[in-house]
Every structure is written in structure tokens, then in C-alpha cells.
């Protein structure tokens, strides 16, 4: 009988990148299902196109790059990270956006945002959101033509019609996207957030605006269920310990705080918290995008600050900004702030003094912070590599 003495660490983490990514992909299913139920096949078509383009780009870049020793490309290609990026992008795109929007977005996300910065675990920005912002800034017309939920549409939109609209811009009967978005009484319908913003500039109060049919009976017709779907998926991820609770909780609490203040002071021009929680990309951002281990903050305190900052920016953009929804911009701005947040929320090492009390370790702090960041990237996003090597 032999007794092996393994060296530390004795606790081996089983979570590989591909397993983690697969879990997150499964968790998007309820939200995507709600999206399919209310907006039809559009997003599913965009998701599949985005996955195809992302994998193609990933394959091209990986074959150009230096090969990891002894490993084939397919190991990195199918670790799920590119697929997840593509899925998140496909969810975020308007259902009737033309096909080239997805192609440009997926290629940009993988090629520029992910691989030019060094590949998996090295990207400072969330690829899906950076691609979304690129598209939103470049093609505002195509990126804002969200159709109303299917139940409000006067023209029936089945799979064939959706596909032909995405590919050619017209349905099989020859209706354009603008006609699809027009209600029977001749109004073009937009998303609840967009409608609210426009109505406020027209002098309507929140209550008057929310009487419109696009808001449905509760908060935002269709969107509330999509957001609840992503909330369910996010709670599943938290119970599975795939994501940490700190970021979503502080993000949603921050939105609650700022919108509560606004609603309490001026309910005519500030929408209530539940509307902000259940419309737009709030839940998707809270549980699936801000929780990205690579681009977010590291420590728990840092994550709380990170989420709170994101929530603040979202509320500011929604209330005062030029765009109806601000989650993507908030994510990018917080990604930029993450290294700074990490610097000031460095947890105290056991047995050491608080770093603030030491006067002459300015350089040390930045160095350890960098090391932390690299460690984190390796551990959380790139575990596959380390575990593989260990085996």
C-alpha cells in the first residue's frame, strides 16, 4: 500500500472554463425563451449567426496565434467563451436587425476586443458589450428598431418572415421593418424605455406615459418576463456558485437607491424602481455581464463598489443621457474603472498591516495588484489551462 503525499493546495477546484461557460450558457435559457415568446424568432436567428461568426473568427485567430504547447486549437475553440460572447451579443441585438449587424458585432467582439488584447482572460472590456456599443454608436437606426411584442403587432411575424426580414429587410409579403413596427393606428412603437424617454420630452408625466399599451398591465409588456427569466437564470448561477452574489446585489441595490430617491422627490419625471429593474437589459447586465470574472473587480468590497457604480451610471444614462438604456455603457465604464477599484479595495493580507498605513509601498501596491489581476485571470477564466497542466 502506498501513501501519496500531495503538495498543497490540497483542495482542487473542479471548475474548468468550459464547465463554467456551459453553466452560464444554460442559465440564459429562461431569458432567451421569454424573448422568443414575446419577440419571435429574431433573437434566436441572431444568436445562431453570432455563434457561427464568433467560432469562425476564433478559429482563424487561434490558428494564427502561437499554439499552446501540445494542445490542439479545438480545446480553446470549444471552451465555450466565444459561444457565450456570441449568445450575449445575440440577446442584446434588436430582433429585426439586419444580418450584417450580427456579423460585424461578432467579428469585432472576438477579433478586436478579445484577441488583440491577448485572448481569454486578458481582455479589459467585456467583448459582447463592447461590440454592442460599437454597433449602437455606428448604426443607431438599425440598432434601435426594436419591434413591439408580438401580441401588439398588426402583421404576423412567423419564422420565415423573421428570417427574410433579417436577411433582406422585408418580410415575404414585402413589409419593411418600419411597417412592422407601426401599430394599426399608425404609431411607430419603440421599447418601453425609449417610449418613456420620448414621452417625457413631449411633456407627459410618467403615469400618463405608462398608460400606453407598450407598457402592458404591469411594468413593461414582455420585457418584464425577459428580465424575470434572466433573474431566474442568475439565481441559478449564484446557487451553483458560478458567479458571486456581490455584483448583482450591489448593482440592483444601487438602482433601487437612485430610482427610489428620484421617484420620491419627483414621481412625474422619474420612473419607479420596479420599472427600471424589469425593463431593458437590467437583469441581463446584473447577472450575466457585470459578473464577468475577467473584466470586473476582484475582492468582495471591490465588487460591491463596482456594482454600485454601474447601477448609478445606468440610472443616470436612463434619466439624463441620450440613449434609452445605459447598461452597455455602464459596463464599459466600470470595466475601465475596475483596476482603480481593485487598487483601493485590496483586502488586507493576514498578518500584515493595512496597506494604507504603510507609507512607502506605493509601487508594491500596484505590483501586487497586477499580480492579483493576472492570478485572477488565470484562476477564474483560464482554469482549464492550469488544471490541464496539473494533470
Amino acid at each position, binding site marked *: 500500500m502506498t501513501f501519496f503525499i500531495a503538495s498543497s493546495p490540497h483542495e482542487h477546484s473542479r471548475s474548468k472554463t468550459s464547465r463554467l461557460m456551459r453553466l452560464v450558457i444554460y442559465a440564459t435559457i429562461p431569458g432567451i425563451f421569454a424573448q422568443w415568446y414575446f419577440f419571435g424568432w429574431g433573437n434566436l436567428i441572431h444568436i445562431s449567426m453570432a455563434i457561427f461568426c464568433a467560432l469562425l473568427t476564433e478559429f482563424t485567430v487561434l490558428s494564427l496565434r502561437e499554439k499552446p504547447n501540445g494542445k490542439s486549437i479545438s480545446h480553446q475553440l470549444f471552451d465555450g467563451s466565444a459561444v457565450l460572447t456570441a449568445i450575449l451579443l445575440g440577446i442584446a441585438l434588436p430582433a429585426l436587425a439586419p444580418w450584417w449587424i450580427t456579423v460585424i458585432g461578432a467579428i469585432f467582439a472576438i477579433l478586436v476586443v478579445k484577441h488583440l488584447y491577448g485572448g481569454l482572460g486578458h481582455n479589459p472590456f467585456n467583448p459582447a458589450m463592447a461590440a454592442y456599443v460599437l454597433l449602437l454608436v455606428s448604426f443607431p437606426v*438599425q440598432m434601435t428598431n426594436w419591434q413591439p411584442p408580438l401580441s401588439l403587432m398588426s402583421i404576423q411575424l412567423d419564422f420565415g418572415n423573421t428570417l427574410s426580414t433579417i436577411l433582406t429587410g422585408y418580410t415575404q409579403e414585402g413589409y419593411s421593418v418600419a411597417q412592422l413596427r407601426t401599430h394599426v393606428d399608425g404609431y411607430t412603437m419603440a421599447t418601453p424605455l425609449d417610449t418613456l424617454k420620448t414621452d417625457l420630452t413631449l411633456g407627459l408625466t410618467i403615469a400618463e406615459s405608462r398608460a400606453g399599451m407598450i407598457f402592458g398591465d404591469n411594468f413593461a409588456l414582455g420585457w418584464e418576463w425577459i428580465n424575470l427569466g434572466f433573474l431566474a437564470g442568475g439565481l441559478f448561477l449564484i446557487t451553483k456558485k458560478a458567479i458571486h452574489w456581490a455584483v448583482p446585489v450591489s448593482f440592483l441595490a444601487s438602482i433601487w437607491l437612485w430610482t427610489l430617491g428620484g421617484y420620491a422627490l419627483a414621481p412625474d419625471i422619474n420612473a419607479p424602481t420596479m420599472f427600471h429593474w424589469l425593463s431593458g437589459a437590467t437583469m441581463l447586465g446584473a447577472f450575466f455581464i457585470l459578473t464577468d470574472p475577467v473584466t470586473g473587480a476582484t475582492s468582495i468590497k471591490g465588487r460591491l463598489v463596482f456594482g454600485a457604480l454601474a447601477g448609478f451610471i445606468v440610472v443616470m444614462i436612463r434619466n439624463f443621457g441620450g440613449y434609452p438604456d445605459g447598461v452597455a455603457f455602464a459596463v464599459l465604464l466600470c470595466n475601465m474603472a475596475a483596476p482603480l477599484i481593485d487598487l483601493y479595495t485590496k483586502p488586507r493580507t493576514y498578518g500584515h498591516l493595512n496597506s494604507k498605513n504603510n507609507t512607502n509601498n506605493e509601487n508594491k501596491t500596484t505590483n501586487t495588484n497586477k499580480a492579483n489581476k493576472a492570478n485572477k485571470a488565470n484562476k477564474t477564466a483560464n482554469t482549464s489551462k492550469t488544471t490541464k497542466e496539473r494533470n
Partner: protein
Amino acid sequence: MSFLNAEYKEIAWQGLWKNNPGLVQILGLCPLLAVTSTVTNALGLGLATMLVLIGSNATVSLIRQWVPKEIRIPIFVMIIAAFVTCVQLLMNAFTYGLYQSLGIFLPLIVTNCAIIGRAEAYASKNPVKQASFDGLMMGLGFTLLLLVLGAIREILGQGTLFDGADLLLGDWAANLRIEVFHFDSKFLLAILPPGAFFAMGFLIAAKNFIDTKVAERQPKVEDKTIERVRVNFDAQ
């Protein structure tokens, strides 16, 4: 002909490629990124910068014996500002449309670090002829970079080339406009400043790529090494 001297060749090579103000020194990024949305704007600003650079380099070099070290920077700035004012007035008079589209970036040439950098690093230490040639070459390198950047952004952004060239070159140049492809919606990012950062990043990457390829092609100079014989007495 002293023009083909090795010294002048080296100056030209430095300005155009090896030490290009935009690609290598990364100087003057503010106008570089702001006005290169079309080839015409790029050419206009490039020419203006080049004229100022030649003039300031020559003048700084002329008076380099009499300028006290302590106050050289204000003097350089005043010389540059004088040339910028001349160029600005000229453009106001003869190419008014371009003058308007360049806007604030024309007077801002005064603060272009590429110009003051050349005055400080080269012109204040070298004779007039070399200094003005250096100004010409640095300006040419900068203009060429602006042109390439402008062409990339104009093609990506609106699918044309030389759009609005008549603003700079007179009415005949309206025919220069080339429509490369027609697109229903403009690719706004290429026209907006982020597009300039992306294009600039790719251009620098391309330059580094070419440099590494050239370096790989070079035959390796083998150092003469003294071969040592290791004598190991304990060997069995």
C-alpha cells in the same frame, strides 16, 4: 550634389519611416485623431503642419546661437505661433471651406508636440540646411500618415475617397471624388474619434509587423566568439 549625402538620406529615412512623428513618436495625436475623417481634411492639416514645421525648424536653427537655454521654450512657441498665424490667414483667404472644416485644429498646430519636439531635439542643435530638410521630411512623414489614416477612415466611414477635395484644391478637384462603394448607412464609428484610435492602432501594428519581417530577412551578423575549452580535471 550634397542632396544625396548619407546624412540627408538618414534624415529622410528617419522622418518618413524609422522615427515617424505619428507612427513611432506618437506625437501630435490630437489633430491626428480629430481631423482625419476624410482625405481632404487630412491633406489640408498635413500641408499646414509641414509648412509650419519647415519654417519653425529653419528659424530656430538660424537663431540657435543667441537663444538662452533658460527661455528657449517660450521663444520656440512664439516662432511656431507666428508661422501658424501665417498659415491660418493664408488658408482663411484661399481655402475658406477647408479652413472652416478644420476649425480649432488649425490654430492648435501651435501646441502640436511634433513641431516643438523637432525644434528642441533637432533644429536647435543643427545648421539651417539640415534643420529645414528635417522639417520637410518630418512634415512629409506626418502628412503621409494623416493621408493613409484619412483614406482608411473615409472609405470605411462613407465609402468615398477625396470627398470635398474642391475645398482645398479648387473647383476642378470636385471630379477627384471617387465612390468606392455605396452603403445605405454610414459606418459612423470610423468617422468618430474611436475609429481613428482603432485605425491608428492597426497602422502601428502594421509598421511593427513590417519591421520585424525586414529584421528577420536581414542576414544575421555573427559575433566572433572565442571558443573555450572546458577542462575538467575531476572527470573520470
